[in-house]
């Protein structure tokens, strides 16, 4: 079988042509395997990024944060999946819930790839910095870069004709990011030794918590 006849589902094709990747995914008979691949890329990327964040403290926290980030991404995606379907439908999508799941996974997998690619940079700063506020802002900045590329991937999917408009999907992705930030707040501390009482355990909204951490209150 020639290479052009077998659709390619790998990281390089995802990053170089996310629109084409989404189009192939939509048309693929064997949908489940690439969807699982995308989910794995999303989770591995989150785990690697979490490891880099936790390296600020020690190896134990790095592994704990790695597991937490996997949970954060999986939970946020599951919670916002109905939102994605409604938002996409309102903006004119006729894709089935399963195919839309694939498109959502293209965005999260792109985010995962960028987070994994930026993880060494974050790790370098984590192990060479002592200011919690700086690491929080720096990690948020790198995650913001990942989110930008994820939304760009959705825009490329529109150019490839997978969806008529990406307004709904982009809005969903913003909701996904906000939920992820709140979940990170819920599973704190991310930047303190395990079992320490450095972070308050009470409920709070992520903006208030991040502001407290950054201003070192």
């Amino acid at each position, binding site marked *: 079988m020639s290479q052009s006849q077998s659709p390619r589902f790998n990281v390089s094709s995802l990053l170089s042509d996310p629109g084409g990747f989404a189009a192939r995914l939509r048309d693929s008979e064997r949908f489940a395997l690439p969807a699982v691949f995308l989910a794995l890329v999303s989770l591995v990327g989150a785990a690697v990024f979490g490891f880099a964040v936790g390296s600020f403290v020690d190896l134990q926290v790095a592994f704990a944060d790695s597991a937490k980030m996997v949970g954060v991404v999986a939970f946020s995606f599951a919670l916002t999946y109905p939102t994605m379907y409604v*938002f996409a439908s309102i903006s004119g999508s006729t894709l089935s819930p399963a195919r839309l799941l694939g498109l959502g996974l293209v965005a999260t997998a792109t985010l995962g790839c960028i987070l994994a690619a930026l993880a060494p940079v974050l790790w370098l700063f984590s192990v060479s910095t002592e200011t919690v506020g700086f690491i929080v802002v720096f990690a948020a900045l790198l995650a913001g870069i990942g989110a930008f590329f994820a939304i760009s991937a959705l825009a490329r999917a529109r150019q490839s004709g997978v969806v008529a408009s990406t307004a709904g999907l982009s809005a969903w992705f913003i909701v996904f990011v906000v939920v992820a930030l*709140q979940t990170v707040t*819920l599973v704190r501390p991310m930047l303190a030794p395990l079992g320490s009482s450095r972070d308050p355990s009470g*409920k709070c*909204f992520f903006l208030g918590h991040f502001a407290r951490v950054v201003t070192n209150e």
Partner: protein
Amino acid sequence: MMKRDVLIVVLSTAAYGAVLAAWRSPLMAAYVAVKLPVVFVATTLVVSAFCWAAGLLCRAGLRYCEVLGAVFSAMAVAGSILLALSPVVLYFVFSGAPDAGTREEMRFAHATMMMVHILVLACAGATGNLVLCRALRRRVPPACRLAPMVALWIASFAVVGCQLGWIMRPLVGSPNIAVEFLRSDALDSNFLESLFRQIIPNIISKGAVP
């Protein structure tokens, strides 16, 4: 078609209403699940005559029933968005709002949630009106001044909707006031006074404004 849209509006706003007040108590959630659909449907009925008149002034040539149908379809879109965001907002309520704390902390949490809900409702309303605008563009004659007409509709919805919501308070449920279906002073002030005298100052001062 309009009956289906009204049903969507009632069910979705009831669901979001329950989420809106869930942090306070189950009784409050039940109250708001009843009150929020009333706010949405009553707002539409109150402004429908003005919307129809504004449509005629802007040469849209729409009959009253067509205006009502268009407005309810926009409301149904907004309701669908509220329904889609209900799990997310519920998650925020239960993961972010404290169960107990000082009066200042509880007031800050209340003001924050008020702002979140106002944002969500405003986004849902804006999207509904955007969809309405697109639909009307295909329906009205080319001579119709669509932009000012829709602007007038949105302004009337915003003013009447906010004030009706204010009259029907408590909707989020202030932590320092007892749970009740309607306040005894429901007709004593307005929404804008509250926004600029309590909600925004409480967020800025972290709950210091009584």
